[in-house]
């Protein structure tokens, strides 16, 4: 099985590549991203290409002729890039990769990274939509993801292959670059205790396992990949022994500026998550992919247990002087 991974430079893409490298069924892996992988890769080939470099991406995808396309190059605002570059890179990468994939003869399957942000959080919206709920994003990140899904289904239709859209809950983990993770780890965290609704999360490792299972599986259509349970922002902050600072209405503007100064920008989709909550029914993914993700409260606990500096000692080789 030949697998093409876009977004392989990110934490999720690198981990997915590592898991596929360990799979004897996977013969070749090729990765594309604008920055190098975050961990060591053993047998995957990696091409460092800017997401906006359409010619090179199209050429590499067509030459590789993948059987499975894992499109993980969806860039969350303020994870690596600011809001505008993240949106433009997500759009450019999806157009180039999925567009090139329509002419790949060996293509059998497309898996794309999406998110539960596509359901939106309008007033009166369902707190736990399943995959049949209509798409109605209420922030820029959700709109970017719904556009990626739309392009993927269009590509799948043209190429005549099944498409799986993995609608991840916000991915959080000890080493996962995310605006939510950075914000919750500030020493003082602004929250709305009287207005907040609970949200669900998914651990970075569970997200990678789900992506690999989707690539190797036979399902199609959208799948919500969500850790069981939920947590409110105030609760998460107290679990991490941070100081919750109650803010209301315009106070969020001040909180956003302050957190940006402290190195943790608060984009609109994260602010919406903290106040309006976000969740989804992940039972179908549990059945179809056979995954058993960590609970949301465990994900939060692991986020705070992350040590600032990890000392890695080189292995001592016998006989070396």
């Amino acid at each position, binding site marked *: 099985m030949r697998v093409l991974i876009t977004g392989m430079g990110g934490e999720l893409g690198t981990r997915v590549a590592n898991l596929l490298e360990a799979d004897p069924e996977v013969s070749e892996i090729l990765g594309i991203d604008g920055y190098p992988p975050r961990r060591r890769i053993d047998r995957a080939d990696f091409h460092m290409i800017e997401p906006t470099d359409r010619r090179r991406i199209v050429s590499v995808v067509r030459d590789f002729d993948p059987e499975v396309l894992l499109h993980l190059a969806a860039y969350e605002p303020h994870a690596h890039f600011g809001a505008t570059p993240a949106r433009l890179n997500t759009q450019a990468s999806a157009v180039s990769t999925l567009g090139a994939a329509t002419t790949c003869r060996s293509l059998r399957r497309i898996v794309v990274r999406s998110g539960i942000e596509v359901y939106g959080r309008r007033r009166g919206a*369902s*707190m736990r939509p399943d995959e049949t709920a209509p798409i109605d994003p209420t922030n820029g990140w959700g709109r970017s993801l719904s556009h990626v899904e739309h392009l993927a289904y269009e590509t799948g239709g043209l190429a005549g292959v099944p498409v799986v859209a993995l609608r991840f809950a916000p991915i959080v983990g000890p080493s996962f670059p995310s605006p939510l993770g950075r914000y919750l780890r500030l020493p003082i965290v602004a929250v709305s205790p009287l207005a907040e609704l609970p949200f669900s999360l998914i651990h970075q490792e569970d997200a990678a396992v789900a992506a690999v299972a989707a690539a190797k599986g036979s399902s199609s259509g959208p799948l919500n990949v969500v850790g069981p349970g939920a947590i409110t922002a105030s609760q998460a902050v107290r679990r991490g022994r941070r100081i919750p600072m109650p803010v209301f209405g315009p106070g969020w503007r001040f909180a956003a500026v302050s957190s940006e100064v402290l190195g943790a920008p608060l984009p609109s989709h994260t602010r919406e998550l903290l106040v309006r909550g976000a969740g989804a029914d992940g039972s179908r993914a549990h059945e179809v992919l056979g995954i058993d993700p960590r609970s949301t*409260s465990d994900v939060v606990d692991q986020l705070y247990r992350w040590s600032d500096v990890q000392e890695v000692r080189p292995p001592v080789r016998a006989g070396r002087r």
Partner: protein
Amino acid sequence: MNMIDLRRLPGGTTLRHLDRRWRGAYDVDEWGLDPELVALTDPAVSLRWDIDVEGAGRLPATGGAVLVFNRRFGFSEPWVVARGIRRASGRFVRTVGVVDVAPVGPGLRRFGAVVDRPDEIAGLLRAGQLVGLPMSRRLRDRDQVGELQVDRIEAALVTEVPVVPVAVLGRELGRHWRVVVGRPIRPNRRGGPLAAAELTEEVRQAVQALVDDASVPGLWL
């Protein structure tokens, strides 16, 4: 005296709850229900409502079910049903109809309220929850139950869970209330356009019958 010693004093359970809340070590479900907050506020709630529950054994011990109940003004009834059923069966009732506006909406969600949407009701039923569905208000004639919209009962048909008629009797300014649980009605599995309408009518009649049977005759008789 440290915290551990304090916990052994009278009121130690409350202290333990408060300590857990301070540390964020409590559970909130995906719809916002906070069981520990419900337990903490229960003594105060018991000062307002004294509730007798009859027929609680008819409620399913596990799995989803829709509880359709009558209401007059509609202020006390959702609380009375939720607290009465919880104390009688140990199960939480997710009452439909919260307004999604802060701080009222998030506050009521902590006590089990949910928004009035068919997909939200269906999601709760699939997750094995008891959903409390109030009928329309009936201000003038307290012996007549209100109407039940057909589209609100469709989730029970889709998820094939039983519908339980529940009669709520009491006065808005009074403390004593009665909750009478009727026999569960199994939705018609054949479905079809008329199934929801027929089920709605059957449930409405069942609630009316419960109210008729449970009503105390007027003093003038």
